[in-house]
């Protein structure tokens, strides 16, 4: 038992999955602890609702657990987990009419430009809390696709191909989203004092 516990703490994803499949439920608990923050953050930025993000996060892990025997162990676990989360977020947004209003890329860009042109009191240096708020605002102003691509690539360090797989999109489309997201974020943060000039 102690050996299994050590293995759960130290082993990689594939080993933990194999342990889970061999009737060791504690192994999957370790996977939950390992990815809970990332999955919750991803879901939160996608649906922008705390309660919904919690429910989707729980459902993501439950579905992953049920489908674990169908998971291709030659591939990385994290993109597969984010694929489940992405699908659940999309379904939840379709069901919930109070989903983020900015679903259109053009509308989002217009919103960003409007915010840029609006007079803002800039501070040379802002607090961590202020920076966090500005960063959240910057992310929220991105369209859902661009935001998810940015988070998957730059927060969760997924490769372009993995981002494309998780979002069920073309790699070139993902590159376009990322390019647009970087530019928009930079402009927004420059305007709102999130970046040091």
């Amino acid at each position, binding site marked *: 038992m102690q050996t299994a516990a050590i293995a759960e703490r130290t082993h990689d994803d594939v080993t933990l999955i194999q342990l889970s499949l061999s009737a060791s439920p504690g192994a999957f608990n370790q996977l939950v602890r390992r990815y809970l923050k990332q999955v919750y953050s991803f879901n939160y930025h996608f649906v922008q609702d705390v309660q919904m993000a919690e429910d989707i996060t729980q459902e993501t892990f439950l579905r992953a657990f049920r489908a674990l025997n169908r998971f291709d162990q030659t591939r990385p676990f994290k993109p597969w987990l984010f694929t489940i989360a992405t699908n659940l977020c999309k379904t939840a947004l379709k069901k919930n009419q109070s989903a983020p209003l900015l679903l259109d890329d053009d509308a989002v860009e217009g919103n960003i430009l409007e915010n840029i042109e609006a007079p803002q009191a800039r501070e040379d240096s802002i607090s961590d809390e202020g920076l966090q708020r500005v960063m*959240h605002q910057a992310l929220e102003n991105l369209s859902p696709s661009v935001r998810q691509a940015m988070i998957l690539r730059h927060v969760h360090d997924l490769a372009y191909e993995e981002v494309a797989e998780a979002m069920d999109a073309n790699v070139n489309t993902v590159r376009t989203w990322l390019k647009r997201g970087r530019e928009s974020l930079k402009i927004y943060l420059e305007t709102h004092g999130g970046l040091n000039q």
Partner: protein
Amino acid sequence: MTDSENNLIEQCYAYFDGAMTPDEVETFLSQLKNNPEARQLFDQLTQLHQELKNQALVEPPAGLEDRILGALEQEHAVLSLETIRRRRMLPLKAVAALLLGFGVGAVFYFNLLTPQGDSPQVANHASGKPPVIAEVPRPTKVSLPRKPQLTPAQLAMQPTPSPFRIRPTQGVFPSLTPIQSLIPSPTLANIASAEDTQWDDSFETLYYGVEDLNAQVAFYDEALAGEFPNIN
């Protein structure tokens, strides 16, 4: 944002992504050294990249982990219960399959042992009910060889058959008369022209009747020869 700035941003992210060759990295870093504006943009993007990583990760609410682990535990319990049920059902299924196989085998073996065709099938023997004789296929009716039909004229031309070794009595059995005298010739003609089955039946009766009569005659012949050797 100018095109050169966009290109520089792409170069910076290619550098962050590790998508540059060593030569490209060397060229890029030398560009940053020589161009202060490019260096400033690179620093901003580095900060943005780092802040994005730091700030985008949101701390999950307290209790979410326990909630998920509890749900997983329930899920695991359900799966375990299903597994246990399947395992418990396994011996019962095996026994049922064994009984079914034994029953089918017994019926097959019983059928092999039962003679086919010669003896009637006995059913419901084990149920206590009176045995029911199964229907036995009726044997094919075999008709006797058909006697060639003769016209009445041909019959008249034919000599009177004398199958009976009846000799004229000499007063011992005055009542014994030749059989042909008992059968009128129109009757024979009627028999010959009758339907097959009817004719066959009549002819059979007639034939065996004659045989019996012939046997009686022989018996009396032998008796007469034994008791009255002086006759003939």
